[in-house]
C-alpha cells in the first residue's frame, strides 16, 4: 500500500504569524488520522494546504503522489473537504445541494445513485426537500459533511466534523465515518478526545504549528506515561506551553 499523504517540512507563514512551522508527516492509504491541538495550533491551515485552499510558503506536500501546488488540478479530484465552517448553498434543498456536488465531482451516470446513497447513509430522507437554510445547525453540518463525501474522494478531510452535533448525532456520525474508513483515507481534526480515541488509527498532536507527538494511543500513552488520551494530550500540550 502506498502513501495517501506525504508532507515534507510544510510551512505556512502569514504576515506576522507562522501558522504551520515545518510539518513532516506520512499517512498510509486507508488510515484515519486524528489531528489534535489547542485553538490556533494550525490544524485548519494544514487542511487548507493539503486541499489547495491555501499555498504553502515552503516545503512540499503530496496527495496520492500529486503535488498540491504543481498538480493541484489532480489533487482537487482526489480530495473531499468538509470545512470547519459549515458551507452549503442556503437556497438549495438538501437534495439539490447533494446533486450539485455530485454533478461537479462524479461522472454523470453515477450522480443520481450517489445522491440516493448519501441521503440514506446520512439519514437525510426526511429533510431532502427542505431548503438548507431552514435546517438546524446540526443537520446543516451533516449536509456539509455529506457534500464532502458524495464525490467519493480518495482522501477525505473533516475539519471538526462533529462541532455542534448532539450526542446522538455525534455517535451516528462516528458510525458513518467508521463505514467510510474502508474506502478512503481520512484526516479528521477535533477537540473531542473520545472522538479521536474512538475513530483514529493514529493521533497527531499539534502545537504552534508543529507536530508534538504522533502515534497510536498506546504509543502515546507509553511515551508520556499517562493513561487515556485526555491526560496524554494535556501532558504534551502543557509541556510545550
Amino acid at each position: 500500500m502506498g502513501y495517501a499523504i506525504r508532507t515534507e517540512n510544510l510551512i505556512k507563514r502569514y504576515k506576522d504569524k507562522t501558522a504551520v512551522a515545518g510539518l513532516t508527516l506520512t499517512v498510509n492509504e486507508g488510515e484515519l488520522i486524528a489531528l489534535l491541538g489547542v485553538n490556533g495550533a494550525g490544524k485548519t491551515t494544514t487542511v487548507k494546504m493539503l486541499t489547495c485552499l491555501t499555498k504553502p510558503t515552503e516545503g512540499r506536500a503530496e496527495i496520492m503522489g500529486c503535488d498540491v501546488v504543481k498538480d493541484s488540478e489532480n489533487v482537487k479530484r482526489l480530495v473531499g473537504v468538509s470545512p470547519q465552517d459549515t458551507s452549503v448553498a442556503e437556497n438549495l434543498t438538501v437534495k439539490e445541494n447533494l446533486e450539485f456536488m455530485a454533478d461537479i465531482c462524479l461522472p454523470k451516470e453515477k450522480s443520481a445513485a450517489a445522491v440516493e446513497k448519501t441521503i440514506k447513509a446520512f439519514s437525510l430522507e426526511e429533510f431532502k426537500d427542505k431548503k438548507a437554510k431552514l435546517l438546524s445547525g446540526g443537520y446543516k453540518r451533516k449536509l456539509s459533511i455529506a457534500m464532502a463525501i458524495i464525490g467519493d474522494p480518495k482522501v477525505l478531510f473533516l475539519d471538526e466534523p462533529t462541532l455542534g452535533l448532539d450526542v446522538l448525532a455525534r455517535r451516528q456520525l462516528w458510525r458513518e465515518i467508521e463505514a467510510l474508513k474502508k474506502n478512503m483515507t481520512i484526516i479528521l481534526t477535533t477537540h473531542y478526545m473520545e472522538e479521536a480515541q474512538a475513530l483514529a488509527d493514529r493521533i497527531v498532536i499539534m502545537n504552534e504549528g508543529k507536530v508534538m507527538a504522533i502515534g497510536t494511543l498506546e504509543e502515546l500513552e507509553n511515551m508520556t506515561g499517562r493513561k487515556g488520551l485526555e491526560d496524554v494530550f494535556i501532558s504534551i500540550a502543557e509541556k510545550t506551553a
Partner: protein
Amino acid sequence: MKRTMAFAKRNLIEVFRDPLSWIFCIAFPIVMLIIMSIVNSAIPKEAGNTLFRIDNLAGGIAIFGQMFIMLFTAIAVAKDRSGAFLTRLYSSPMKSGDFVWGYILPMLLTAVIQVIVSLVAAVVISLISDYSLSIAGLLLAVVAVIPSALMFSSIGFLFGTFFNEKAAPGLCSIIISLGAMIGGIWFDVEGVGGFMYKLGRCLPFLYATKLARAAITLNFGVKEFLLPLGVVVFAAIVLTVLAGIVFNSRMRADQR
C-alpha cells in the same frame, strides 16, 4: 462544461427563488413601461418628443432592465464570496471558467425572459395607444439585446468580484443612474449634446440603447445599427474576458 452547467443550475435556482429578482428584473421594467407610456400620452404632439413613444421606449426599457441584471449578478457573486460555500468549491475540480459562465449563463437566461416579457408588454401598450410595432423588429430585438445582456452581466460579475456585498450594490446603482442618463434612456442625449453626449459616446451604454431601438424599428443604418452592434459586442467580449482574468487572480489571491 458539466461543471459549468451544474453551477449555472445552482445559480439559476438562487435567482428564481429570490422574489426580489422577479420584482426588479421582470415586474419593474413593465411598470416603467406603463408609467412612461402614460407620461407619453400626456406629452402634446406638437412637442415632437418621440422618446417615450412605444417604439423608442421599449428599446430603452429593455436596456434599463438589463442594468438590474447587472445588479443581481454583482450581488450573487459578492454574496457567495463572503460565505464559505465558494471557498469549498475552490478545492473542487471547478475552474475559473466554470465560475464565470456559471454565474453569467443564468443571468443571460433571465435577461432573455426579461426582454420577452417587456416586449410583450410593449405590444399590449402599442395596441392600446394605436401605434403599431413590427413583429419582425420585436423578434430581432430579443436577439439583438443578448450582447448587451452579456456585457451587463460581466460588469456585474466584475463588481461582485472586486467589492463586497455592501459596496457592490451601491456601485451598481451608480452605474444604473449614470448609464440610464448617458445611455439616452430617459432623454435624448444626442439632442442635448455637450459633456453628457461626449461621455455617452465613450461608454457602451448609449450604443446598447441605440441598438435595441434600431432593432425594434428595423433600422439597419450604419450609425443606428451596425456601429452600435460592433461596439456592444466588442465591449461584451472584452468585459467577459476581463471577468475571467480578474476572477482567476482573485481566486489565487484568496489562496495566499
